[in-house]
């Protein structure tokens, strides 16, 4: 009898603890697992986004993607090459260690170490110096107007913990060195890592001693990546998950029709575009003595022949947002007047092409990924057909992303698709410096076609050091306007972000595709 009652009590306790845990648990799934727990080992945005729940930067983006204080309570620019950060008092790491200037210095130096894979996410910082226990100076090699934007991606680790576990440097593939921080964590964030089985389940529990006032009501997060789209949606429909992202476009209707689940959508920051080869001749064409793409009339004709309304309706199922310039609305430098796509005009395009000396069109290579962007291959097929009516015969090569970008970055493509979210800076400077600036050691890393425009280069260089935000934004808009007039790169659209949640989970889509779980509320 006594035994029975003990079993009864245990059972009741198990049931109770079970219901409490389930009540505030968010079971979520992404299409890929995070790469590692070490925030300085990888720059994949899904990894960085998820780790933000465990680790925190000095400053962070809020739900509206505005910079706000996080581990730094305030900051001041002592001179353009020295920024002073006053750290937040009373913050503790998950293991109870206090957060101090030593941790910030160690973390920043770890991130910018020559062997660190994330060093290009903090390009201007030379050294971090401790001023006192709660103050840190960052010394820069050149003025950097978007230092704060960069810092939103650099998470702070505990120095004592790193020293104890020999993790003061990030994992180095080149030397075959492993690192304790790859599978373990000790941050200051709203959630604490409880356990992790790669590709199966990563469990976070709420941090009761978080320095910020929680806006969420979660007690536990169970993250299970599911690679197969069909399975991920099925697991949501069967009630095994509360939140999945991304949800495939073709399943939106099915999810909305089902009971108890719905889709939440929003435009992504990422703009999909087509870049050009500006070399002496084309790689894959019947014209060998010159490159038609260097003629702005040809580029304009190609742009005008693309009917983006049709693509938005048929290929993107009405979920995309047509783009006139190379950045999305939340990005500084964006201008609504520039962001107008002139309507498609086949006759006008034909006339332009004839004026340029190609009345019978020409052949050209066209490269697309088939697993990187939403419906990437389908978009390229549609564009190929549209150009065919212009007598431009595009030889489409659609292949997996690692192959596609290898070819594109090596300069092997004539016309190529690329998407740009401007992350981590969230600033037009990202497009200007990486895609539009004349290729060099520091800039133009994603300008393999060799586009070169002295005006844009001059404006980009000026933008990189201008600290007056208004002037700076105006210059970026001007440069984007020049690029638009010159059809340097064709802007196509911003692709949609599609997440799906079960009823009772309240959260919003953030355009950078990083769910901020400290804003999530569950109401049942």
């Amino acid at each position: 009898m006594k035994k029975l009652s003990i079993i009864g009590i245990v059972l009741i306790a198990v049931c109770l603890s079970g219901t409490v845990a389930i009540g505030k648990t968010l079971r979520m799934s992404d299409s890929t697992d995070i790469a590692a727990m070490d925030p300085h080992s990888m720059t994949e945005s899904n990894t960085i986004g998820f780790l933000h729940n465990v680790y925190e930067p000095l400053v962070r983006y809020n739900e509206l993607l505005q910079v706000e204080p996080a581990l730094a309570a305030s900051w001041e620019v002592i001179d353009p090459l020295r920024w002073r950060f006053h750290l937040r008092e009373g913050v503790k790491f998950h293991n109870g260690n206090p957060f101090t200037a030593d941790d910030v210095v160690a973390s920043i130096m770890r991130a910018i170490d020559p062997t660190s894979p994330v060093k290009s996410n903090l390009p201007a910082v030379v050294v971090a110096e401790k001023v006192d226990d709660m103050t840190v100076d960052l010394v820069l090699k050149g003025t950097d107007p978007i230092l704060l934007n960069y810092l939103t991606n650099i998470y702070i680790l505990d120095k004592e913990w790193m020293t104890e576990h020999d993790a003061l440097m990030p994992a180095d593939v080149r030397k075959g060195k492993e690192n304790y921080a790859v599978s373990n964590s000790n941050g200051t964030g709203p959630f604490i890592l409880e356990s992790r089985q790669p590709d199966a389940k990563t469990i976070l529990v709420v941090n009761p001693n978080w320095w910020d006032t929680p806006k969420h009501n979660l007690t536990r997060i169970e993250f299970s990546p599911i690679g197969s789209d069909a399975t991920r949606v099925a697991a949501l429909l069967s009630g095994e998950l509360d939140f999945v992202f991304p949800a495939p476009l073709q399943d939106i209707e099915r999810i909305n029709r089902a009971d108890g689940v719905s889709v939440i959508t929003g435009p992504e920051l990422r703009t999909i575009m087509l870049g050009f080869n500006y070399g002496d001749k084309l790689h894959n064409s019947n014209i060998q003595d010159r490159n038609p793409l260097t003629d702005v009339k040809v580029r304009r004709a190609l742009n005008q022949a693309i009917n983006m309304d049709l693509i938005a309706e048929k290929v993107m199922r009405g979920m995309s947002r047509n783009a006139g310039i190379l950045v999305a609305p939340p990005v500084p430098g964006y201008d609504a007047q520039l962001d107008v796509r002139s309507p498609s005009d086949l006759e006008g395009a034909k006339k332009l092409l004839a004026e340029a000396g190609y009345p019978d069109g020409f052949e050209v290579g066209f490269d697309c990924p088939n697993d990187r962007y939403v419906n990437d291959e389908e978009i390229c097929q549609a564009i190929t057909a549209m150009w065919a009516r212009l007598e431009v015969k595009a030889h489409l090569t659609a292949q997996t992303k690692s192959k596609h970008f290898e070819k594109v970055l090596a300069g092997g493509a004539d016309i190529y698709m690329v998407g740009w979210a401007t992350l981590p800076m969230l600033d037009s400077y990202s497009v200007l410096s990486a895609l539009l600036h004349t290729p060099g050691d520091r800039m133009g890393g994603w300008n393999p076609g060799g586009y070169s425009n002295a005006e844009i280069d001059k404006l980009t260089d000026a933008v990189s050091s201008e600290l007056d935000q208004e002037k700076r934004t105006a210059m970026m808009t001007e440069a984007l306007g020049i690029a638009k007039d010159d059809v340097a790169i064709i802007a196509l659209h911003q692709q949609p972000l599609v997440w799906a949640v079960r009823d009772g989970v309240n959260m919003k889509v953030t355009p950078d595709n990083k769910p901020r779980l400290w804003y999530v509320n569950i109401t049942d």
Partner: protein
Amino acid sequence: MLAFILRRLLQSVMVMLAVALIAFVMFRFVGDPVNSMLPENASTKDRQELRTQLGLDAPVMTQFWIFVTGTAQGKFGISYRNKRPVNDLIAERLPATLELVFVAALFALIVGVPMGVYSALNRHGIVSNVLQVVSLIGISVPTFVTGILLILVFSVWLNWLPSFGRGDVVKIGWWTTGFITISGLKSLVLPAVMLGLFQVTLIMRLVRSEMLEVLRSDFIRFARARGLTDRAVHFGHAFRNTLMPVITIVGLQLGSMFAFAIITETVFQWPGMGLLFIQAVNFADIPVMSAYLILVAFVFVLINMIVDLLYFAVDPRLSVTGGST
């Protein structure tokens, strides 16, 4: 005997070397891992530096030599994506795949053999004909379609079984097992059925045709003439003689189940080696890919060798020819 084993061993080494070469050549075509390892805003110089440090721009022969010597010592390096030693990653995933293959093979045998025997003994029965048709469907429907259908019926509609993952696993030493928890066992059902379904139909058809053949042979007729019961004839004589080729085929199929678990693991997010491999392909994670390919080749070579040795042990004629050549 010794000469035979030595010759087989030598052949196995040649096969492994050939696989290493093919795998190595393949990596030239999977894309540039550097692009996915560095952030979008990394400069051309950073990319080139990393490529040099990883040895990706060394001459092809040098790279192959490093690859082969490393492989021979079991050193596969660090995963480009997960930043952990490849040996650890594989050791972590191996139990999941092996348990899945084991259960799927068991399922295939337990269901396939009785079905085959039954349809051989009752050739013209309605049930046998239905089984024949069903098995045809089982052979021709692609496995990922069966997987998705199983999820739709048993997870979404009936809500009986989980649609993904391994459930709760228990750690025993370095091995993790799903055999001793309820959620672990429930999670095994659908993936094992998906992986085993093709084998069920294969085994069933194989057993049926072998058994029909044996039933037609003279010694069965003599056994009947001796007045033995049907039961003794069918199970004491016919079935036992049917089993030899079946065991051989099942042994070889184990290897292909191990390799084809990739599809099942992708559909059910089963955290095994196949899933690891697929992700490695997407990321051009060369150390993981090479380790996986070498391991699968090794499993095949090993199984083949064991089967050959079994033949050698079972069939006395082999030793005569083996000795004379």
